[in-house]
């Protein structure tokens, strides 16, 4: 079967030639990746604008007349859902996953390219259904991104008539799209690697995406089912999640359902989702730090096991989102313990990132700046997670701005920093040109400092007790003037950060034609995607010869080597020969070329 899978029929295949098959109905993982990425960024821009509108209302109440209470809740809901699912999940797995997996493991494409193409178009449909909810009577749902029933499907919540139906439909479609893509990613990584590419030689980017995709395949079905059940409750009047309710003096037709069930199902998906977004970021940042510090990643094996450990543990911590939901307090104890245990593998990763930087030859390139800022932001957001993971500390902080600050730092800003770093890092491979440096510097510094200006003060707001998800705070007695002043300041910072993202988008377009030519391997990186014969890689990725891998992805600054990096496909003996040559002016005659000693040859190969 090995032969079957690896048959090289595509070597002579030059791929589709018409514009439509090449760029629109494309089955090439690289084109699909860019389609995914651009769609995710486009819908992310919508969410960005929504956050401006919300911030305007919070900082300068009443300044924008059309942002009324209903609109505010709708914006908050759509902002959250878009950012978490349609932007971050899609760009990390559909975007970077698609682009990098086949290139990094040395495959010609995903194992099922047609399914991969379908995945993108179904994702696009999900996005369009979501966007369409802005244009239906009643507008999008305003139930909050967690969509807790019963309020999300009952009259009185904005968008209860159409918005919630479209939201749930869109989620169900998204999950179908994700499953088609995710099956491809996992199978490609497991079964279609290059010769010599063992699992423990894969770059951590691939590991992060792999574990995250696998988690997605187990977590998204749960959201799928709870979405279907909620949809049935809303549309045909079943009572899975709705108990007896008296509304306006009249009993509703519902009864006997369990609202707590939805919370459990939602967070059984929702917590792994945090790591579905975070693990690809962990993986990518590990590679970025290593490459731009010219040093091997510290503790590669531990990094891999930490990824797997975090992935496994994240399935048994979900109820820490529900300490105040009224569930049995004994559960709170259990989930607090598991939550704090997850800090161990996470801390291993942070130590290893710092130790990778330690005494490295740090190049403060823009990807590196974003990577370092990720580590800082992640540590910051992670530490506030320790506060919220403990029941007794969490209860008073529940539903305050402390929570908003925590999750924006840890799973909003931190992964977005990695997205930016990764785009600056791989843009040269995707387009053949570097992104403009000065624009990148402005983008980085305003984003980095700006996000701190936004989220630092929110921790204070949380300690003061400012509740989250409120439309206005003007007439609330216990809220001091300082809160109002801070809210205005946060809004100004948010607008600056928002505007500088437009500069980034401009940079993406500007550099396409005018960026500095990059060459095949501008960062002098070792992993396979930088060793392709063409930049950007063409259909089939590798030309005639499939790559053969001889080493891990982190051979930087190896003592005695003539370059400070050794690509993964560089044969072992060519380094050893060079090494011997340097030390011994009269080298002994080389023996017969031996195969890679780490890999025993298989039958038929020897």
């Amino acid at each position, binding site marked *: 079967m090995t032969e079957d899978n690896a048959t090289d029929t595509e070597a002579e295949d030059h791929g589709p030639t018409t514009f439509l098959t090449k760029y629109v109905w494309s089955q090439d993982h690289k084109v699909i990746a860019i389609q995914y990425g651009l769609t995710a960024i486009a819908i992310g821009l919508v969410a960005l604008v929504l956050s401006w509108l919300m911030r305007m209302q919070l900082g300068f109440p009443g300044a924008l007349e059309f942002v009324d209470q209903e609109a505010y809740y709708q914006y908050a809901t759509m902002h959250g859902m878009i950012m978490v699912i349609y932007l971050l999940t899609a760009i990390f797995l559909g975007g970077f996953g698609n682009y990098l997996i086949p290139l990094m493991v040395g495959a010609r494409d995903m194992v099922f390219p047609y399914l991969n193409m379908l995945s993108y178009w179904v994702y696009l449909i999900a996005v369009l259904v979501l966007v369409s909810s802005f244009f239906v009577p009643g507008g999008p749902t305003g139930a909050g991104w967690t969509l807790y029933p019963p309020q999300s499907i009952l009259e009185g919540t904005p968008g209860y008539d159409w918005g919630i139906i479209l939201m749930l439909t869109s989620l169900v479609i998204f999950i179908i799209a994700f499953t088609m893509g995710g099956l491809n990613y996992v199978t490609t990584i497991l079964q*279609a690697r290059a010769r010599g590419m063992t699992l423990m030689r894969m770059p951590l980017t691939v590991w992060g995406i792999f574990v995250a995709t696998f988690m997605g395949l187990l977590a998204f079905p749960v959201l799928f089912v709870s979405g279907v059940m909620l949809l049935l409750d809303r549309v045909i009047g079943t009572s899975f999640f709705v108990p007896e309710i008296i509304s306006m003096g009249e009993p509703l037709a519902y009864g006997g359902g369990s609202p707590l069930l939805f919370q459990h199902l939602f967070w059984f998906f929702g917590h792994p989702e945090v790591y579905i977004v975070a693990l690809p970021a962990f993986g990518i940042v590990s590679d970025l730090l290593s490459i731009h510090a010219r040093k091997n990643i510290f503790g590669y094996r531990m990094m891999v096991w930490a990824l797997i450990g975090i992935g496994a543990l994240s399935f048994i911590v979900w109820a820490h989102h529900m300490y105040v939901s009224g569930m049995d307090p004994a559960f709170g104890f259990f989930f607090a313990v598991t939550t704090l245990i997850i800090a161990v593998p996470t801390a291993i990763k942070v130590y290893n990132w710092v130790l990778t930087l330690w005494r490295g030859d740090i190049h403060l390139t823009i990807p590196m700046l974003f990577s370092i800022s990720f580590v800082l932001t992640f540590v910051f957001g992670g530490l506030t997670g320790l506060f919220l993971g403990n029941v007794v500390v969490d209860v008073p902080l529940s539903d305050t701005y402390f929570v908003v600050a925590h999750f924006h730092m840890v799973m909003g800003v931190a992964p977005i920093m990695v997205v930016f770093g990764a785009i600056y890092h791989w843009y040269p491979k995707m387009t053949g040109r570097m992104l403009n440096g000065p624009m990148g510097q402005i983008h980085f510094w305003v984003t980095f400092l700006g996000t701190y200006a936004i989220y630092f003060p929110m921790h204070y707001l949380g300690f003061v007790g400012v509740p989250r998800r409120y439309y206005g705070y003007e007439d609330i007695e216990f809220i001091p003037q300082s809160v109002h002043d801070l809210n205005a300041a946060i809004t100004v910072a948010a607008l600056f950060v928002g505007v500088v993202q437009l500069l980034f988008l401009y940079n993406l377009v500007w550099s396409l034609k005018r960026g500095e030519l990059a060459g095949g391997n501008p960062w002098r990186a070792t992993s396979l995607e930088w060793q392709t014969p063409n930049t950007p890689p063409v259909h089939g990725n590798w030309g005639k010869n499939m790559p053969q891998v001889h080493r891990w992805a982190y051979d930087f600054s190896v003592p005695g080597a003539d370059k400070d990096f050794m690509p993964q496909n560089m044969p072992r003996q060519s380094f050893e020969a060079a090494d011997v040559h340097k030390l011994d002016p009269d080298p002994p005659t080389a023996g017969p070329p031996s195969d890679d000693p780490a890999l025993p040859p298989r039958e038929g190969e*020897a």
Partner: protein
Amino acid sequence: MAQKRAVSDQNITIGQQLVEDWSSDREAFKNVSWGKSMMWIFLLSDTFIFGTFLTGYMTVRMSTTVAWPNTSEVFALTIGGVELPLVLIAIMTFVLISSSGTMAMAVNMGYQRQAKKAAILMLITALLGASFVGMQAFEWTKLIHEGVRPWENPFGAPQFGAAFFMITGFHGLHVSVGVIFLVVVATKVLRGDYEKRGDYQIVEITGLYWHFVDLVWVFIFAFFYLW
């Protein structure tokens, strides 16, 4: 070299073999095609779909304030004046499990490259599957006539109808997809598409899906009908 390795293969344990496969290059599962590994991963994912359905059903069964209907009465048929509890479900379960048997035989015939026998067995499997769906349609019709709706029913807790239609509906959908899948693959087997490549693994992949759908039914049977 190859000889030496063959000798050492006899002495290593399954555990060592597993570690060796996983630490090797190219493939983590040796001699497993892309399609087959993808089907396994998909089924793992699908397990969570049905697991969540059943968890949800059990939770609402606890949370509802009205008594749960007695399933042996609701699912009874009166045949020749005698009320037989769960008789239809028993037949349906028997049919579906028998179809797993014919499926396994089809896989075997596929690997023996007896295309005609494999195709016929697959078509028998599809026929059994289709009759399962037919009986399910009969059951739905009967319950709907008796007034069972997703939002109410005359026997007790409204969640009974909701969970029933949702879970059996989703499972029936899986069986229907499986029937179509079987017919398509059987046609291709008859046409000789796989004879050219000499590879009948697709029959096994179809079988994996089919056995999974059967296995899920066993759980639905146990948790929904017998409990």
